[in-house]
């Protein structure tokens, strides 16, 4: 649909989205709305469609049917990954994916909000204020001493943080975090929760997570996915006491 008038006031609007792989429905008529400024956690057993949902929003997977809109006007089901990223949607992958052979500093440099054109990147100069911005983010994610080190030599937890730093530096309006604390120590998990809460003050964040203690520490609205559709939605206590949720997920 190419209407200029917003369909909805919501930041992210999924309606009846279906994605199937060889007959298996990863998403089955999924409808989900995320409002501007919200912090939302999404839980669900393996294969519930959490990662597929993120793939659809970021343009990696095209839905078979259904509508996906950002700010009510941008039809995400028709845009390329790079175009979606430039609308202000950032994503952190399940497995930390940093650019291993580049330094930590250079990883952040690529994530800076800056022109993305091929020609512009050829002539781009790193100005002092951008350098300061990178230094500030390095300090914020606890990697101030590691700027010149190849990202491939970081520990698992440090890579997760670098990836969050790469989302931070770009000032995106919507962040999708796929299992941000996977493989982290308890201490790192706590620090990550604090960081996410701080980030959530001025942007919208959707977190997909398995770790219930972590989800509880975020204290946000929870959506439970099951077999590609929403099973329940509400506060963590509401969801944990929901009989269907206990049956399919928490009860196992």
């Amino acid at each position: 649909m190419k209407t200029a008038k917003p369909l909805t006031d919501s930041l992210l609007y999924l309606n009846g989205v279906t994605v199937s792989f060889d007959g298996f429905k990863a998403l089955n008529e999924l409808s989900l709305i995320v409002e501007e400024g919200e912090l939302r956690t999404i839980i669900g057993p393996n294969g519930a469609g959490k990662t597929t949902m993120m793939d659809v929003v970021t343009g990696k997977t095209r839905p078979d049917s259904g509508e996906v809109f950002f700010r009510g006007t941008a039809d995400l089901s028709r845009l390329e990954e790079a175009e979606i990223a430039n609308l202000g949607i950032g994503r952190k992958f399940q497995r930390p994916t940093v650019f291993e052979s580049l330094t930590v500093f250079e990883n952040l440099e690529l994530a800076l909000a800056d022109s993305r054109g091929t020609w512009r990147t050829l002539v781009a100069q790193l100005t002092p204020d951008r350098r300061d911005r990178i230094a500030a983010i390095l300090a914020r994610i606890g990697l101030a001493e590691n700027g010149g080190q190849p990202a491939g030599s970081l520990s698992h937890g440090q890579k997760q943080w670098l990836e969050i730093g790469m989302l931070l530096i770009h000032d995106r309006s919507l962040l999708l975090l796929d299992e941000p604390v996977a493989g982290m120590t308890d201490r790192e998990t706590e620090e990550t929760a604090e960081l996410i809460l701080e980030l959530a003050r001025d942007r919208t964040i959707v977190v997909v997570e398995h770790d219930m203690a972590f989800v509880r520490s975020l204290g946000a609205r929870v959506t439970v996915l099951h077999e590609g559709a929403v099973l329940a939605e509400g506060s963590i206590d509401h969801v944990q006491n929901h009989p269907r949720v206990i049956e399919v997920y928490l009860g196992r």
Partner: protein
Amino acid sequence: MSVLRGDQQRSAWRPGFWVGFLTCVGALVLAVPALNFWVPPNSLAALPDYLVPLLGKYLCYALLALSLDLVWGYAGILSLGHGAFFALGGYCMGMYLMRQIGTRGVYGNPLLPDFMVFLNWKELPWFWWGFDHFVYAAVMVVLVPGVLALVFGWLAFRSRVTGVYLSIITQAMTYALMLAFFRNDMGFGGNNGMTDYKDIFGWDVHRPSTRLGLYTASVFALGFGFLLCRYITASKLGRVLQALRDAESRVRFLGYSVTNAKLFVFTLSAVLAGIAGALYVPQVGIINPSEFSPGNSIEIAIWVSVGGRGTLVGAIVGAILVNAAKTWLTGAAPETWLFVLGALFILTTLVFPHGIVGLLRRPRLIPARASAPVPAGEQA
């Protein structure tokens, strides 16, 4: 400061680099003519005439290797069809040289090259138009490989053909071109190609001074190509290319157009390969379809990996050393050459993966690659 070390742009153009670069170019430009021209021919230091075009040929190969290193070493695009771009540049130059022969051919036809007279062609085919002018031929040297790379790259990169699949289709491309150029009715001399050149810009191609001129042009072309590749790899685009080599889909999610970035370097690389081919042809005196053979393109990848890929200097060093070894060994013990070439490739893969340049550099300067570079995010 650890943060400053992350800045490649500054360190790429530090004064020490310019001193080294100008010393190398100066030595190549001055030493060869001096030893060839002014040293008495019977002295030990004298450079015999036949070595000048041989050295020039190595420099053309070095430029070709450099062009492959730009796409393979940095962007991770292993093109096994770069020999095709080299050969196309060479054919454009060959056509210019054929038109320069004029009435001095065996059949003395002022318009048609000998092979066309032999095949009973009555007039010059349309695609030979303009090749009697050097400027037109020079433009074609850039345009023909460039446009082919642009169209081929656009189709391949837009459809996200990567890795070994891309390598295979580039092999198919050069093989198809080889079969086409073997045909007599294509109008490019078929099997025999084009040879028996007389002069270039009115100078006899066999004269020592012309050969020195061509050699010097090759030095400058290589120097210019090196600076251009260094500029690109030290720029932010260079970091984008290295990033997409590590994790292509992650680069897309950062908002960069992977297709455009790849298309840009692939096309530029093909143009450099074409220029290398154009300089190669007058120095070796022939161009024929065997330049398109798939094996030739694979050999370029071996030069680059022996020298050290992703270093630019390594490509130049590798191309020159491997070809010097080839010249010597194919004279001394011809039947062993292919075994040596194969062994070199296995050795560089297993024992010194960073090539000669990697062996010379202090170990800590080599980026520590965490295990195998699995394209993370591709599977997620």
